[in-house]
């Protein structure tokens, strides 16, 4: 192999290495670009006035794209995600039985969100609640597009 051939082969090799690097980098960029965007930041969001939520009563709301159920549990207001932790159906509050029911797979949760019956693998998800005077606020994750629907 003469010097010219050697340099040509070296150039092709270097070009191959750089191309492979660019290709790998492009895959990483595209993967990260396409993965759903999720901000961890939660936002304090007004839901209702506390005197409108009587003991044992629940209220459903959609906050920045998050479906929630607000419950007055023994004068303590708590907020649950209305999305069943099993397969994502919406749970409803059964005031008579004082339980949350999921119509999809007949799951039931008590008023603390613990699983009573059915297949859900964990208790209902909860959100942080803040009472300021008479106003009830819930901290829900920021959702870019849903935020514009509010």
């Amino acid at each position, binding site marked *: 192999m003469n010097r010219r051939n050697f340099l040509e082969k070296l150039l*092709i090799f270097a*070009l191959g290495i750089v191309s492979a690097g*660019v290709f790998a980098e492009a895959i990483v*960029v595209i993967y990260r*670009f396409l993965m759903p*965007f999720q901000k961890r930041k939660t936002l304090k969001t007004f839901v209702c006035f506390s005197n409108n939520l009587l003991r044992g009563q629940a209220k459903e709301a959609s906050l920045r794209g998050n479906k929630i159920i607000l419950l007055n549990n023994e004068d303590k207001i708590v907020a649950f995600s209305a999305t069943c932790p099993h397969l994502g159906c919406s749970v409803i509050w059964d005031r008579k039985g004082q339980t949350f029911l999921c119509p999809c797979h007949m799951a039931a949760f008590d008023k603390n969100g613990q699983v009573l019956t059915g297949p859900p693998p964990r208790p209902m998800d909860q959100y942080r609640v803040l009472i300021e005077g008479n106003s009830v606020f819930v901290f829900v994750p920021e959702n870019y597009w849903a935020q514009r629907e509010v």
Partner: protein
Amino acid sequence: MKQKAKIWLQDRVKIDVEKVKDSINEQVPDYLKGLWFCLGGTPLICLILQFVTGILLMFYYIPYQEVAYQSVKFISSDVRFGWLIRGIHHSSAQVMIASMFLHMVRVYFTESYRKPREITWMVGVVLLGISMGLGFTGYSLICDQVSYWATVVGTNIAGATPVIGNHIRLFMRGGEDITQSTLTRFFVLHIVILPTSLIVMLVVHLFFVRSHGIHYEEKDCSKKGEGFYPFFPEHVLNEIGIFLVLIASFTIFNYFFPPSLGEPFNPNVTPEHIKPEWYFFGVFRFLKLVSYQAGILGSLFIGMCLFAWPIIDSLLEKLMGCKASKSTRYIIGMAFIVAWATFTAWEAVT
């Protein structure tokens, strides 16, 4: 094992690899090693980048007038690497059109459009027109102030075309005004109709390039004392090198100068300075200098001359003889480039 796999594949995929190799491995004149002569491949590289980044942008862009601007803002500021994908889409569009211009200049002055390559030139002009259409429709999708008012002005200019102008304007706008219907139409043009047309015309262009072979300039090759070199791998490696340089340049440029986004569109307030993309500057300035109708007719005339140049050129040669037509061709080409560059620079600085 390797042989077995090859036979297995050949039994199922009835393609003669050797024939494909022969058809790809065209002999390329030596002077194509010069970057000036690689400009035909550069738009193709940019087009590939456009397709990849365009498809990625579609994952987030919402072609709904109320939120289109928000979705572009979301891509630019919130989505990971969104600035880079949008930036490469924008930069590669600019470079694609710039390299097309330069490629045409090279083809013009090396007389590569002459018999039997007239159709290749004409298809090339159509490709440039489609690319400019893609630039215009893409620019309008952003829905910021400048892009909104550029759509207003651009559709009005198209509307001034004699006889069919009003039909073109109504078709482009989807009504009398710029509405959601306009955005939907521009979106369909930008992502379906124009790219499909571009691919079809590109295939035709490449078919003619390959069927006639690359224009061979005896004068240049005799100087080097060599002749041709194989398309694969030498020329392909050149193009890969250009691709790497382009992608690195786009990344660095967009890191420091990410694509801008103005204020959201407001149909009630026209901004002070509305300007189209730089490749329309020349026409835009020309329209300011002459009456509206004359400007439109003049631009159409220039476009038609550009398209039909190989025919005009052969007529010139018949009328004036070989030597005189050669210098006329040179003067016309230089005059056109100087006029266009002057108008573009004039519009850019005012």
